[in-house]
């Protein structure tokens, strides 16, 4: 197990109050819990992952995610069981879209 934490400052997109969870913690999959929180305009992402040693990959995927959505005052928590970067990105986008009420 490895825990990772990221914080991106000065986002621009606010989220509704109702927390959402997407995905399931299973082999090659993960759950994303997304909540609105007072973080001084920042977006924080806390990751708990079964795959050890992929910090650099996580950081790149999280940075891409933040550039896509520019969330502010958003707290995200991830429980991961070895999902690939593509699955992680997909779940994060799904979480934001669910939060914004325009889930596909």
């Amino acid at each position: 197990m490895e825990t990772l934490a990221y914080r991106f400052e000065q986002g621009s997109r606010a989220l509704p109050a109702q927390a959402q969870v997407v995905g399931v913690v299973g082999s090659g999959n993960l759950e994303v819990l997304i909540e609105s929180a007072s973080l001084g305009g920042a977006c924080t992402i806390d990751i708990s992952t079964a795959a050890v040693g992929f910090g650099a990959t996580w950081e790149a995927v999280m940075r891409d995610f933040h550039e896509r959505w520019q969330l502010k005052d958003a707290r995200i928590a991830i429980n991961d069981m070895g999902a690939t970067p593509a699955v992680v990105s997909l779940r994060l986008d799904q979480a934001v879209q669910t939060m914004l009420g325009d889930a596909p």
Partner: protein
Amino acid sequence: MNSYLELTARERLARLFDQGSFKEFLPPSARVASPHLGQLNAPVAFDDGVAVGRALLDGQPVLCAAQEGGFMGGAVGEVHGAKLTGLLRRAVQERAGAVVLLLESGGVRLHEANAGLIAVSEVMRALLDARAAGIPVVALVGGSNGCFGGMGIVARCANAVVMSEEGRLAMSGPEVIETASGVEEFDSRDRALVWRTTGGKHRYLMGDCHAIVPDEVQAFRAAAIDAIAHSRGAGVELSLATLEAEQALLGQRIARFGGCADPLDAWRELGLPDPAAVPMMEADAFSALAAGHTLGGAQ
């Protein structure tokens, strides 16, 4: 997507009950996760693999739970079991109209050992307390992990079990039986045999489930509504007479089928016209064929 089998626990709750009516107790944001998995360096889920709450079913308020088979096979740990127990106790306190359990579980979570075993026994006791208080409990079994071990017992403690053929219900899973008794006793890789033995059709014929439905959310929904009404009519509380009837049914099963090597032999003994055709039949056609040939509890 209309297949009950392919949905997650939360998707089932959203689609089986009246639209938008599910309100969760202890949602993932409460972060009540297993205290044991982290110690073992295993990932947790914020809901510990089960969602519990209240919802409307055809306009009627019910309490409900759904196990997530994708997280550790829906296995029951301390928190997971406590959420189910708390839901059933709340049903008694609130005089709930009914409890609907969407079960999908391999049984006790081995990581949590005795904590999981105790949790399952508490769920059973709470379920029987709810029935004793006059609250019908209906179990739906249609997930890809089936309903095994302790949760198999929990399902059979309910007033009614609704299954699809794809859902499976048993005590020990196929791999467990093969490991304990050998491949000659039960070949767990023989998928057709596994489904003949633990799948919904055999359970229906043996009187272990009360309704068999196609693998469709709306079919499970309709059967759950029927099962609640039927349970109220039949008497919700577990009575001595019911237990004695169950005991007689089990005795009858051993007497009639104890010598059968395969469920096909048992179906033949029940008088089904063409047992070999049963696995390929649609649920509705099967129900019609099975009428008059089932043991015990079928509605």
